[in-house]
């Protein structure tokens, strides 16, 4: 095809201008890809950290009640909701722990360790001494390292738990965990120990739920409220993800503007090209090139510049992201976890951006190409 041939010649002969145009688009796309993947990575990290400790949905007793009765029925109902990956019942109460003359107030939680691990992974990733499973047998407790230090407790020591209206219990410390301050006031005991402490039967105070899709939490909470329970989603408790979402949107708009500006650069280059090539366009017309052939030559050139710029930008952006990820730059770290500078490139972006720059560049080329095709050959040949 003559148009392709002529376009290719123009682009390869004017290597410097071509590289400049491709470079401008590539730079815009690289920055966009990096920003987007940085936000992706940041969001992923935030999700990872927060959601290890925050259940997606928390079910609380019905209005006017302080306990969830018949909780096995509730758990059955929870498990029938699609997307539920964990449901951990808990019986929570306030308690005072005393040891060697020191007293600290804690939230004493009766839990099933296996289920709790699915919500917060405490027993899996955050134990520094002993283990969480040990609380299942007898009067035992697992608590936070900071709390243990305040009470001067060591593994194997016996601590006294008491509270008004509660039975005083002696608990052996068999597990110490460290979550970097996320749950200093939590002390975990078995469900049975908690019930004995409160003198309660088969009741709980809450069910923590994890979902495979965290953005369905509101919906799941609503369906649980229909059963009469109070249910809260993480979304109603934290605005962080909304703010990430809105930042992502505004960033994408800014980035799109950057790309549009780079497309204007292409329009500019095409305009100059048409001006510079006026005589040659006239000559091509004299040789029998129709208006549509001339128009296509310039549209193809604009398109190639955009596509090449978009593709190069994606490759460079992806390369930089992969390289920075491989450096594992730690932004902050705590016991059990570290936050790394982490770019997560959305593979769809790698397809979308070359297409976007292709379309924008062709759009930018429409006017100059039209101008070229409408030249009067007699006038054009005169220059």
């Amino acid at each position: 095809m003559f148009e392709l041939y002529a376009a290719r010649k123009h682009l390869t002969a004017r290597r410097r201008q071509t590289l400049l145009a491709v470079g401008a688009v590539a730079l815009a796309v690289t920055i966009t890809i990096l920003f987007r993947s940085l936000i992706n990575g940041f969001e992923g990290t935030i999700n990872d950290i927060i959601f290890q400790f925050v259940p997606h949905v928390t079910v609380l007793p019905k209005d006017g009640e302080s306990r969830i009765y018949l909780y096995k029925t509730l758990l059955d109902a929870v498990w029938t909701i699609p997307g539920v990956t964990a449901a951990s019942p808990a019986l929570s109460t306030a308690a005072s722990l005393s040891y060697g003359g020191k007293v600290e107030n804690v939230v004493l939680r009766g839990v099933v360790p296996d289920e709790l691990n699915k919500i917060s992974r405490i027993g899996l990733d955050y134990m520094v001494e002993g283990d969480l499973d040990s609380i299942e047998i007898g009067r035992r407790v697992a608590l936070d390292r900071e709390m243990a230090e305040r009470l001067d407790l060591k593994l194997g020591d016996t601590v006294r738990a008491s509270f008004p209206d509660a039975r005083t219990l002696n608990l052996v410390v068999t597990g110490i965990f460290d979550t970097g301050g996320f749950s200093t006031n939590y002390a975990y005991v078995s469900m049975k120990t908690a019930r004995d402490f409160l003198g309660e039967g088969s009741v709980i105070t809450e069910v923590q739920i994890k979902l495979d899709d965290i953005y369905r939490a509101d919906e799941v909470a609503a369906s649980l409220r229909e059963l009469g329970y109070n249910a809260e989603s993480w979304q109603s408790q934290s605005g962080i993800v909304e703010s990430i979402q809105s930042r992502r949107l505004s960033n994408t708009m800014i980035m799109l503007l950057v790309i549009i500006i780079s497309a204007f650069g292409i329009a500019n280059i095409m305009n100059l090209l048409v001006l510079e090539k006026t005589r040659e366009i006239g000559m091509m017309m004299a040789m029998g090139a129709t208006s549509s052939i001339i128009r296509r030559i310039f549209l193809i050139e604009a398109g190639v510049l955009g596509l090449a710029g978009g593709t190069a930008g994606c490759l460079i952006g992806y390369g930089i992201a992969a390289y920075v990820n491989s450096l594992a730059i730690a932004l902050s770290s705590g016991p059990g976890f570290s936050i790394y500078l982490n770019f997560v490139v959305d593979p769809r972006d790698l397809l979308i951006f070359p297409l976007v720059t292709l379309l924008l560049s062709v759009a930018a080329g429409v006017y100059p190409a039209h101008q070229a095709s409408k030249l009067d050959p007699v006038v054009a040949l005169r220059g």
Partner: protein
Amino acid sequence: MSKIIDIKKLRKVYGDGVELVALDDVDLTIEEGEVLSIVGPSGSGKSTLLNMIGLLDTPTSGEIWLKGQNITKATPAERARLRNKELGFIFQFHHLLPEFNAVENVMMPLLIAGVERKEARQRAIDLLEEVGLGDRLNNRPNQLSGGQNQRVAVARALAGHPSIVIGDEPTGNLDTKSSDMIYELLRKLNREMNQTFILVTHDMAMAEKTDRILRLVDGRIVCEMRREGDEFVSHDLCHLD
């Protein structure tokens, strides 16, 4: 000889307010295989007439017939097709495309016509050898002299086997030696391929080598001289000065 171009009462007026009559009811018949020169002062309408014949411009009134076909009202696409098939152009400036080497420039009319690359290339090489540039095939215009570039332009004008070759001051930018060389080349091609050549020129020495001279003044043909042997015979009242 048969008529290849027949022009009837051709008129071209420029301008909306102040009218400028570039061509004033010109009648002209051109025979196949003829080498015709058009002379006249600047602004006499020579180039306008040439652009009409070359289908680059449209008349205000009158008719142009090409090979028995009235092409006065042809669509832009049809005119482009006819330019490609029937016409070859040589301008004062070679107007070669700077990104393309000699062969690629000569191939261009053929590629526009949709001729296959390989075939077009062979035709271009043959033509460049014909014009004496067989050793300059891959040189770009900026690597060739003015005369050489003009010879490439001649080869390009001939690439599509046009029936008419139009030259607007084809030697106007060249020294005498190169001019003679170009003219001899055109004449040789005319003898070999019986193509019609229409040349606008300021160069009387060159005009006097053609078969017929038309003199245009103020958009009218004021004089026509035809060669008979070595002599020019005036058919109308002529004042060649």
